[in-house]
């Protein structure tokens, strides 16, 4: 999927946030922990960028402030920001985020993955692609594409702390 010539040679790096601290409530078996933005962010922050050996969090492609979780209506919306407006890998990144969320969240949630408004030249087209269930399902049938996505997701496990 990726060519040998890098599209963004020297992207800007951002600091990674610390591991989520475990609260007493989280250790209490009787308390129900609701899904929150940080939990969804932790699912996708360590996905690898297809172009660099850097995570989406380090490149600021995903940010906790761009995640909306509505537990009452079972809705989750994630906005991501490509590092450059003409990034041809934006669809792949969006698809990877979408696949990781589909695999990691309960099916009761309706998940939407979109590009942050005004951050990409083909924003509408990509949003449409990512919102189309049929097209996402068809993409998942493509073994080459699936392998690329799995390669990006494989790093999640290496960087996720096991409690």
């Amino acid at each position: 999927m990726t060519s040998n010539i890098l599209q963004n040679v020297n992207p800007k790096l951002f600091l990674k946030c610390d591991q989520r601290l475990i609260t007493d409530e989280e250790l209490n078996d009787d308390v129900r922990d609701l899904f929150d933005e940080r939990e969804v962010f932790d699912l996708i922050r360590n996905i690898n960028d297809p172009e660099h050996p850097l995570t989406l969090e380090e490149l600021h492609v995903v940010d906790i402030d761009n995640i909306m979780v509505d537990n009452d209506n079972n809705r989750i919306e994630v906005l991501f920001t490509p590092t450059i407006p003409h990034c041809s890998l934006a669809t792949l990144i969006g698809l990877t985020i979408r696949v990781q969320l589909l695999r990691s969240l309960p099916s009761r949630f309706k998940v939407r993955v979109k590009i942050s408004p005004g951050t990409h030249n083909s924003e509408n087209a990509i949003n449409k692609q990512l919102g189309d269930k049929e097209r996402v399902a068809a993409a998942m049938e493509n073994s080459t594409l699936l392998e690329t996505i799995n390669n990006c997701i494989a790093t999640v496990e290496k960087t996720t702390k096991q409690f």
Partner: protein
Amino acid sequence: MSAMDLLHIFRNSKDLTNLTDAVVAEIETGDLTVLKLVEILGPWLTNTDKNQRKQGTSLLASVLKLIPTRLLQEKECLFMVTFFCNRLQDHFTISPYALEGLAALTAMDNFSDESPIEIIKALQENITCQALTQPQRRDIYLILYNLLNKKSKKISTDFPSDYLYTLISGMDSEPDPRNLLFLFSFLPKAFTEIPLKHLAEEAFAVLECYFPVDFTPVEEKGNITRKDLARGLEACLVANPAFAEYCIPVICDKMESSLKVAQMDSLSLIIRASSSWNLEFLNPFIKRLWYSIKDVLIPGNDPEVALLAGEALTSILGAFSTAVLSESLTESLTFLLDSIISSTHCYLSNPSLSLFLPTLRLLHNIIAVSSTTAVFILPKILPQLLALLEVNSDQSDVILKALSPILVSSVKFDCWESDTCQEHLYKFIPIILKTIEDDKCRGSGFACLTAVLNKLPDDKRLSLYKAIPTIACSESFHSCREEFSRFIRKLSEEYTLEVETNLIYTFKISEEFNATEVKNYLEVLTWTVDYPLLTEASGKVLLNHIIQKELASWRTHVIFVLRDYLNKTDVKVLKCLSSVCGFPEKLLHFYFQNITEEYGEVESVAAIVMRIVQSLDIEEQRTLLKTGLELFDKSIAMNDSPCNQLVLLEGLACGLRKDVEIENCLHLSTCLIEYSITAHSNVSQTSAARLLAVFINKLSNEYELSKILELARLKIKANPSPSSVRLSAWITKSLILRGYYPPCDDWLVELFNLVPDPVFGMNAADCVCLLLKECPYLSEANHCNIGLLYKQRIFQKINLLISQDGKPKKSSSLAVAHMLKYSPTILVLGVINELTGMMVHCLESDDCSITLAILETLSSLLEAGVEVLCTLAESFIPRFILLAQTSSYMAVRQEALNCIYLYGKYDSMDMLPYKTKVLAGLQKCLDDKKRLVRQSAVKARTRWFLI
């Protein structure tokens, strides 16, 4: 055996080669000579039938291979060489045996000086190596190898080109990895010792065709790896500097390849070449090499290639650092360094860009090569870094982190005295001093400060001492602890008296400090204890904070900090704390007189005392023990019931050496037996039981030992209680560790027989952990006897726990679960098939501790990748899924999910049949009510999707 007899045997034999061993034996005993053998074999060797000639030559070659190398005289060798060289002209079925014979002859001790040229000429005239089979080609290489080893001087002076030509033409297009590896093992010697002359290009050409090595290991061909061949080839390619003019263009061509292996091998070759060849040979190609390296260096597509490219560049610069620089070499070096600066300059503009740190890392590696590179590079980058520090205050941490190793090199190469660097370097000092006031970049600030400590003006350095309490009390203390401790340690090492005056003697805990701040400040003080000249001063300050009434409010903190510190420090400091500061004695004196109810504090004091006592020698221990026991007796006499005194006594007596006699040991042991069952607190009971166990483990008097055991047995029988079960377990563990057979087996059986007991069964089951877990009290550090394989002895009795009829009891399941959890993996594997049913039963238990212990055992086995669990996946995976979905205990659900995750790491082909079931099963866990369980479920599910 006479010649006639031998001839007769030969004639009667269908195949002469069957007689090899017999002939070798005859030659070894001296009954037969090789020349005589040739004479006897005359009818075969001169036969008109090629098969007969083949048989004779084959026997002769086999015999030569097997006889000792010293047996043949020079003339015999000469004769045999001529004979086999003639045989090379014979039928193609005979020449392989002639080669075999020549290979054997060239290895002889008395191999003649005149033979090499004869062999070389015969090979040149009669043999086409490429037409032979692999073993035959190997024989030719073996001949050449032997010639090189034995007659390299003769070859070098008389016929170097003939030898080299035979070698080069022989190995041309060699396809077999075994032969190639053999060739690569001696080609470097050949190309170094034999003058290449006009054959340099040809010699390089036969090697070049293999570069870069592209090869997949084949089992039939010796499982030689690509790496073996690549490293072998590399050594050959750099063997002679005459190859440089051919080699470097090839390297540059291959660097342009998109194949990673080509780039990696080329870079590796550059590294090897720059350390092997004189710089004069590299110099004409410096520009070309730089352009090739630059393409993969920064920004490189592949981090591994970029890293190796950096290494290649530094190795070239390293060659410049050791050479005498001529005008042209200086020009090349300047070109190289200028090019590096101009190519990397643009990446230093913004610290938040991804290439900023890799670029600075590369520049640091270049600076670290030599003072020349440092003095050249530093003035170019320091102003830029200085400007960045002034402008990007929020990125100071990143810049300082990269700067600290650069500053270390600058000090190492005395750049602070250089006219070009001095000005810039000194400008950093006020900035670094300022950064340590900032919480965000204090750690990196201290790293830089440690690097330039000797360059700090005295007044600036002295002013830092006042800031130490503030830094210790700051929130950033934990994030900068490592760098800060390194700074204080270096300060202690280099400015000892100054630290003593300004840090240790002025150490004062303010009333305004909170608990964490006090601990941090005390920790800073402990960093100075390591330096012999400061141990006494800082040790006394710490001790005063424990025993002086006016400082009493900080006592508990001092004890906890000191305990942590002593666990990490070495024996010398411990001994010094005892001999110079009187630590254990004063602590015991104080605490026995002022016994506190606070268990945590007393337990830490006991741990401190134990740690110091362990390090003392016998005499010191005797003196301390005498004083300690007197204090203990007094304290016991003053209090009705011993409480924390037993904990202190344990600290004092556990670490004693075996040769330290305990006065009235029998009486003390009797008291300990009593205390371990009847003492008021659980803590005292445990301390008494543990101390008794340590005594029993080290006691050399057999009579006293059996007496104590008898007393203990009677007491335990008379007082059945959880504490007597625990005492029994401690004694059992002590005896097993000591290897005191057979009584230890009796004690063990008695303990295990108690497991099904309806009243004390669960206590006995819990004691299985105690038996198998490592224990800091019964340890080698405490000079205890620790027998080999003691866990195996306990594990042998597992049948006592599982052989009960019918459904196993809860206590038995718990005992087995503990046994499996704490036993070595190898033991568990031995019984895992028999215990599968029991384990599955335990997984279905409603007792959380049983299920959890089994899950933890399985997870550690799965983590180790134990193969047998792959075959048991069908039994375990459905249970794990069920537990993950339905268990009401969060820890069980998490551990079950962890086991599923670990199964996901097994071979994909084995796990594929379970994939659908696992993914569907884990779907439910994604909606678990606990976040931590959901995290484990996500981790497991993500892993299984990759199968």
